[in-house]
């Protein structure tokens, strides 16, 4: 009697339904990533250009930037939310873009792995740090502060 393996199609078909995978057995991750680059890009146009305009064009522009300027901006929940969204979207968008570039140019599996590990580590550190800074910012950190909010 020859042993012929049972056709696998039925069990694969079952996997297809529940596993979040497409016909070729892959997830749709790259599709969502492609879509995310476009959606986050649109949001970033407003967030980044608005950020550049208020910080560099209004008032004294670059000469007006100092601790008091940051304290003034983050006294408003609008700018806190703005900066938080900008941080997360720009970092996710930028990290995902860098991932694409690593995939394109690093040909050895090992090189790709380590570059992506480095990228992921750097990105997590920056996003966590930035988020903590926005949430724990204290304009009156300096006890001798002369800022009006601290009087």
């Amino acid at each position, binding site marked *: 009697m020859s042993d012929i393996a049972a056709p696998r199609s039925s069990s694969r078909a079952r996997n297809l339904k529940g596993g979040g995978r497409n016909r070729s057995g892959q997830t749709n991750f790259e599709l969502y990533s492609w879509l995310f680059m476009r959606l986050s890009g649109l949001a970033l146009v407003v967030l980044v*250009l608005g950020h550049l305009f208020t910080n560099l064009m209004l008032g004294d522009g670059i000469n007006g930037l100092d601790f008091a300027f940051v304290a003034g901006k983050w006294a408003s929940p609008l700018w806190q939310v703005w900066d938080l969204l900008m941080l997360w979207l720009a970092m996710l968008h*930028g990290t995902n873009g860098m991932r694409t*570039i690593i995939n394109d140019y690093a040909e050895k599996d090992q090189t790709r792995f380590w570059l992506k590990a480095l990228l992921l580590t750097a990105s997590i550190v*920056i996003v966590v740090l930035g988020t903590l800074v926005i949430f724990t*910012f204290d304009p009156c950190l300096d006890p001798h502060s002369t800022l009006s909010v601290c009087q």
Partner: protein
Amino acid sequence: MPSKPAGTLYRGREGMWSWVAHRITGVGIFFFLLVHVLDTALVRVSPEAYNEVIGTYKNPIVGLMEVGLVGAILFHAFNGIRLILVDFWAKGPRNQRKLMIGVGVVWVVLFVPFVARHLTHVFGG
């Protein structure tokens, strides 16, 4: 995939150069952002630490680098919108050239006034 592609006669036109520029500006902006979050994080250290580091940026050399950064961001942003239109707008692919010209026009219209005002701040004291 051959590890070293043989020399090619292919020289892309605008499409390839805009892709190269999109990639280079994207990488540049990403590395700037890493540094920018780190310097802004100094507001959690002390007002003096923050003001001191931001103060070192207030010179003509960094001022010119900021002009380059904003030019790169404006290009990446509007070229990105062009890519989105080509992908999602039914008439996008047919209007490739017009979209490309549009990116150039919007870039100039926003960049020139920016440079004028920013350099006034940088050099005007």
